[in-house]
Each structure stands twice: as structure tokens, then as C-alpha cells.
């Protein structure tokens, strides 16, 4: 082991050096070109929707949790009804926004598809 170990470090170092330099070269090539990869642009447009989905998931989780806490006897009936109504109202609002946002998202998706098809032709 003691004899092999130095060579193991040499092999890892050489592989890492080659990989690192290749990545750096690719990175420079990409940075210096003006090409705008479609994936990057499409990703940007999804952030707002992702935030809404995250919000929806958190609200659903909370609705589930307070139902559980009510069943476990930690929340009174009155408190549960009030909190549940409030959370559901917030969740409905998020669903509404998601529906509204999907329209624009569809337009963008269609535009990107058209762009890609245009490139292919």
C-alpha cells in the first residue's frame, strides 16, 4: 500500500488536471461565444412558477399538519376551523396564480419550440 499510494495520488492528480483544464477551456469557449443556450433561458422563466409550487406545497403540508394536530387533540375545534379556513384561502389564491401563470408559460414554451424548430430547419 505504501508503495502504491504515491502513484495513486499521481494518477488522481493527472486526471483532475486534465479534467480541470478541459473544463476551463470549454468554459472560456462558451463565455467568449455569443450563443444563448435555450436551456438557460427556459430555466430562467421557470423560477417564478417554482416559487409558487413551493408555496403551494408548504401550504398543503401545513393544512395536513393542523388537521393532524387537531386529530391528536392539540388544537381546539374552533381554532382548527379558523386556521384551516385561512390556510385554504391562501392555498386557493396560490392555485389561482399558478393557473394564471401557466398561460404565459405556455406561450414561452411554444416560442422556444418554434425557435428550436427553426434552428433545426
Amino acid at each position, binding site marked *: 500500500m505504501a508503495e502504491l499510494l504515491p502513484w495513486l495520488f499521481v494518477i*488522481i492528480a493527472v486526471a*483532475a488536471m486534465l479534467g480541470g483544464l478541459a473544463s*476551463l477551456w470549454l*468554459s472560456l469557449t462558451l463565455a467568449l461565444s455569443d450563443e444563448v443556450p435555450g436551456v*438557460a433561458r427556459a430555466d430562467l422563466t421557470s423560477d417564478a412558477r417554482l416559487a409558487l409550487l413551493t408555496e403551494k406545497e408548504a401550504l*398543503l403540508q401545513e393544512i395536513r399538519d393542523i388537521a393532524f394536530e387537531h386529530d391528536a387533540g392539540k388544537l381546539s375545534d374552533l381554532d382548527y376551523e379558523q386556521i384551516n379556513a385561512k390556510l385554504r384561502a391562501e392555498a386557493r389564491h396560490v392555485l389561482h396564480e399558478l393557473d394564471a401563470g401557466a398561460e404565459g408559460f405556455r406561450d414561452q414554451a411554444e416560442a422556444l419550440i418554434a425557435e428550436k424548430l427553426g434552428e433545426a430547419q
Partner: protein
Amino acid sequence: MPALDIPFFGTLVLSLTLISASYTMAVAIGAGRGRPHLLPSARLGTYATCALVVVAVCVLAYAFQVHDFRIRYVARYSDRSMPWWYLVASLWGGQDGSLLWWAFLLCGYTFFVTRWLRGRYTELQPWVLATLMSILIFFMVLMLFAANPFATYIRTTPGDGEGLNPLLQNYWMAIHPPSLYMGFVGWSVPFAILIAALITGRLGNEWVRAARLWSMIAWTFLSLGLLLGCLWSYEELGWGGYWAWDPVENASFMPWLVGTAYLHSVLIQERRHMMKVWNVFLLALTFFLTIFGTFLTRSGLIASVHSFARSDIGQYFVWYMAFLIIAIAALMIWRLPKLKADNEIESLVSREFAFLLNNWVLLGMMVFVLIATTFPLLSQWVRGEEVTVGPGFYNKWMVPLGIVLLFLAGLGPLVAWRKATGSKLARAMAFPLGVGVAVALLQVLFGARFGYPPVVEPTEIYDTTTGTVLAWMSAVAPLVSFATCAFVLASVGQEFWRGMRVRMRRGEGAGTAVFRLVSKGRRRYGGYIVHIGIVFMFIGFTGAAYDVEQEKALRPGETMAIGKHTVRYDQPRMEADPNKRMIFTDMTLLDASGAENGQVAPAKFIYRTHPQMPTTEVAIRSRPSEDVYVIMSTVDPSTRRGTFRIIIRPLVAWIWFGGIVLLLGAILGMWPTGGEIVRDAAARARPRRFRFSPAGAIVTLAIVLASVMAWAGVAAAQDDTSSTLHAGTVVINNPTERQLFARLLCQCGDCARLPLDTCACGWADDKRVEVRELLSSGVEPSTIQESYRVQYGAKALAIPSDKGLDRALWAVPVGAMILAIGMVVLIGRRWQRRSVEAHAEASVRTNDELEYDSRLDEELERMEDA
């Protein structure tokens, strides 16, 4: 590679890394400032930078293996006789290498976070990469200009190295620093996500969700690092304890405290969109404290038993910390309007408020530790007087705070989110409180009979009213602690029971109910399991109140009795390897009937490179009820007569067991839900059978690493036996001596911070004899303490006095905590009032969108079935 000039090549790689990291940061900033086409370029640059750091680490590791003593760092921390595994561990054995190791771990995290970010959080992503690169740049600058691990000797190259410090030549060196560093460095990722959120202004729950997994991983590794640090201290430093409140230990404890506060308080933000400023502050403070901790560890500014590596890099850290404070404060002020809470607390009787109290205690503890750790420095600056703050101070103040924290760990689960009525809470608390009171009664009635009396002898650290109050608090601490442990266990047990009952009412069997309860609520129940682990650890900590210690000189065949044990000294024996000579003393443990009950072999090691530093290796026989901790102080080769110190440490094993439970709970809590993994895979939707899930891969990797480290640590703790201590004897005859010796520090010059009730060097032994004579001639302990202070200065006392500026040591944190609790209650009440008004408005706005309600029900059912 052998033909290469390795030192030059290593420095060249470091320089290349600095250039690559700077380039990547610039490109990432460009991507963040409206040029999205630069993002893939930044990602590739990140991978390239990480690869270059791997090259640098491999070059240094190679230099160690081939004994390239042209490199100063290699010559100082290794020698030709060291086995290959210590040569690998030497990478982080000294300062320069540990900085490179820090950079390496940061790159490991950066690589995985870059992989994980692919295709998500695209607005945050460039700034996350830029922040991580900026941290790496700092460490690269540090290495290139102040602590280059590839620096060479100016004149002659030594024929052999100086060798690694014997204290570091053990398996702990291989696992403790890496795990602690994994914890320290890990906080860089959530910090980078936070900075990205502040810069982009996306301060909703998005960044919190993005940082969740990474903060859990960092917290888990930091917890593991602390646990392994305790084991290392217990087995290797050999003074009989596991935590000495050394500045370096404190440096790793402080981010843990604040990180724990963050993990609790961020739950409030996730659910209620509240406390956004507070969470930003906590996360930024946690990261800051990791840098501050490294500064304390590496600058040598404060005396520490961990002073294996010091230099003048402190000024770089000071500048970096100043930059961090200014940058974070500026970003927070800029984004204050976006950090406004969307909701208010609805009731002071709620889980949210329990978490606020938990934050109050954790931050209070952090302030205590911070002030006590830096007090020697402050005293030196303000009044030019050196002082020392020893473990006695911390133990007296931290025990009551720890018990309050433990109580909150039991109270929190009982309180509902948002709003709990008094009667519901009283009903929920009845059983756990009953169990706590029952355990207290049992201990009062029968504790003494089984060796666990409810009240122990009070020891005062001050001769003032404060000292008396603290002494009585610590005297009743075992009773309160055990009762609180029982309360928390009952509380968590009741939570599992109630949850199981709810599911059983839906028609599930008991086993299925428990399984689904935990699998559907991993985060919640993982947290509860962490609380159980902490209870077990507290049981172990409480056992320290019942330690018994004795020292005796024995000839082969003679025995000594301690507690219910008898220990027989059999014979000395000598062994040797290329690195050292080892003198073992074989001993046999006997039970009450005289039958043999186990073997131990404490030893003394004499290293070839450090013959002037013979080390004492303790032997430990560990059982759930107690550890038998045996130290061989001296052995005479001609007469074979040995001097042995034996400590019986009840319940210590519970600390390690509790630590394992805590880690399992943390792993359960951070394990991604099936849905998350499926979404990860679906997002990539690759046309192949195996779909890579970054979230799953990251957690799996973290678990594998943590398990390997924990297993190695605990397995070693069970087996053995090696430990290191400067040889000598400690004899304490009565409580007065113990109290006084604990207040006086050894002044031999080599045993910084060790009090006379622990230090085993010859100087300390002579001083104990001198003090004992004074006591027997009727001199008051306070007079002896004062004359010791006059003779050696204020720094010779383990705890500063309770007057003048010294009083600030406890008065400032206590004052801050009182002020903070007042503010917490006031803010809570104000929020509560606002919430009532807001709620009235909200209910007016609510409309009946039946379609959305049915969609919600469908989604809830889907969640339940998932």
C-alpha cells in the same frame, strides 16, 4: 511527477486555482447581472476550479508519501518512520495543510451543489457560485501569501522530518478534523444561497427551501465533529473528561448553537413567512462563526490545548471578517423592505413562541461562550491584565441554561402550531410532567442507594452570593436534569403515541401506523429522534456529577479498591514499533466476589522523534452504567512499581449512544421524501433506466461519510484504549482541596489552562503539597487564592473574580438574556395584537371557490398516498 519540482508545481497549481476561481466568480457575476448565457460557462469554471484544488491536495499528499522534505510543511509534520495512514492524516495536521484541506472540502461541497443546481434556482444560481468562489478566493489568497503548504526551506533541506505531534498520532486525527471541517465548511453553501437571495431580492421561501438540505448536512457533520471531538478528548487527552471548554472547542460549539437556533426558527418562516430578518441574521452569523472559529483555531490569539498549529494569518481573517460584517449588514439593510414578515404570531401559547424561547436560550448560551472565550483578550486590551476563564465558569453557567433548553425540547412538541388553548396544553403536559415528577421522587427516595443521590456537594467558584447561588444550582442539577430528561422522553413518546392513535383511527394497524407516521413526517419525527438523542446525551453529562477518582502506587499483584471495583496490577510489559517504544501495564478488574471481570492495559509511549514527550495512554472499560478509566502515571522499570489513577465515570457511554441517536434522527430528518427524489429524476427525464437524483445522491453521500466517521469513532471507543497525557500524579484529599485546586492554574509553562485539580505535572504536584500544608495550618482558602493571584498574576486563577470589570464576564450575558426575553415577550404580544386585526381582514376577503377547494382536497389525498 517525480521529475517535477514538486514545491514549485504545487504553488503553481494554487496560483492557477486562484486565477480560475477569480475568473469563475467574474463570469458568475456576469450571468447574475443579465447575461444568462454565461451561466453554463460559470458552472464549467466551477468544476475546473474544484479539479485544480484536487490536484493541489494530491501533490501535497504525494510529497508526504515520498518524504519530500524540501517542503517545510512536510518536514515539520512528518518523518520517515511514520506509517502511510499518518502521512495522509498529516495533510491536515498543521495550519497550512489544514487550510488546503478546508479549500478541498469547500470544493467538494461546491462540486455537488453545482451538480444539484443544474436546471433549478437559475436566478439564485450565479450568485451562489460567485459567493462560493469568493470564499475559495479568500483561502487561496491566504495560502499563497501567508501560509503556503508548498513553501520550501531557504537554505538546507533536512534529512528527516520532525514528525507529527504524538498527540495527533492516533485514529482520531484521521476522522475528527475532517468531520468537524465538513461541518464548518458545509455552512458555506446555505450562506451562499442566502447571499444569492439577498442580492436577487428573492427572499420568499425559495431560498429557505434551497438551503434546507445543505444546512441539515452541515449541522449533522458539525454535530458529528463535536461528538468525535468529545471522544478524542476523552480517549486521547486523557484528563478524564470529554469537554474542557477550550477556546477551540468553544469555536466549534458556537456555530452549532446558532445553527441549531436557525434550524428551528427557519421552520417558522417556512410555515408562517415570519422572522425573515432573524433567519437571515442567524444563518449569516452561523457562517461568520465558522470563520471566527477558524480564526481562533489558527491565529493562536487565545491560549488553547489545541495549539498544534499557529501563525500570523490572524490579520487576514480580521480583514475578511470585517468585510463579511460590512457586506452582510449592507445587504440586509438594502433588502429590509423585502424582509418584512407576511404574518404575525397568533398566540404566545404556540409552537412558534416555543421556538422563539428556544432561540433565546441557544443565543444566550452562544453569547455566554463568546464573551467567556474572548474575555482574556478583552481584559488584555482594556486593562492590560491577563486573565483566564476556566471550565469551572462554563460548567456553572451552562448547566442551568442547558437544562432550560432540554425542557424546551420536551415542551415544543406538545404545543400546536399557530395557537394552542391553555386547557389543551395542560392536558398534553400532564403525562410528561407526571413522569418527570415521578422520576424526581424516585431519585429522592432511592437515588442514594444506587449511587445517584439527588443532590451533590455544592462547590463555589466565587466567595459571593452569586457563587453560593450557582453552587446550589449545580448541587441540585442532577435531580432537575434527570427529571427533565424523563419529561422530554415522555413528551416525545407521547407524540409518537398520539400520532399512532390518529392513524389507527383511520384503520391502520399499529406497525403500519408507526411506519407511515414516521415516513410521512420524516422531518418532524427525525427532529423528535434528535431530541431523544439529546436526552441520552444529557443523561451522560449528568453522570459527571457522580465521578469518583483515586490514585495509588502498586507493586505487581497488589490491588486497589474504588467504588464497587477492585483493580489488580499484574505486570509491566514492553513493546516497540519503528515509530515508538511502548510500556504497558497489564491490570485485571475484579468484581465483588473476587472473580475476574475484564482486562485493561494503560501505557506510556515514547516516540522516536519526541523522546522528551513521553505520552500516557489511558485504558477504558466502558459499560452503560459507568466507565472505568485507568491512567498509568509512572512505572519504575527496576522495581516494576507503578502509580495509577483510576476514575469511575458513571453514564458516560450514554453520551456516545445519544450522539448516534442524534445523528440517526438528523439523517432521517434530511432524507429527501420520495416525492422530492421523483421530482428530481423527472426534471431530468433522461431516456435511460437509471435516473440520477442529485438530492438522493447528496444525502446518501453525506450519510455514508457520516456513518463511516461515526462508526470508526465509536468502534474505536469501544475497543480501546489509547490515550495521551503528560505523566504525573494528582492527589486530592477533601472537598476544600478540590474546590481550591480547581480555581488555581498550573504555572509550569507547559500546562496552559490546566487547573491544579487536573494537572499531573511535577510543578503542580509540588504546588498541591504546598497549598495542602497552608490549608492544614489553618489559612483560609480565599487567602491562599489571593496570594496565588498576587504571586503569579490574575491569569493564574481559573476563574476571574466576582468584582469590578471581571463581573462583566457573567453580568453582560445575563443582562443580555434578560433584555432579550423581555423583548421576545413584548414583540410576541405586539404581533399577537396585529394578528387579530389581520385575521379579521382576511376573513372578510375570503370567498368560496368550490372548484379550488376540491382541487386542494385532491392534492391532499395525493400527498397522503404518496
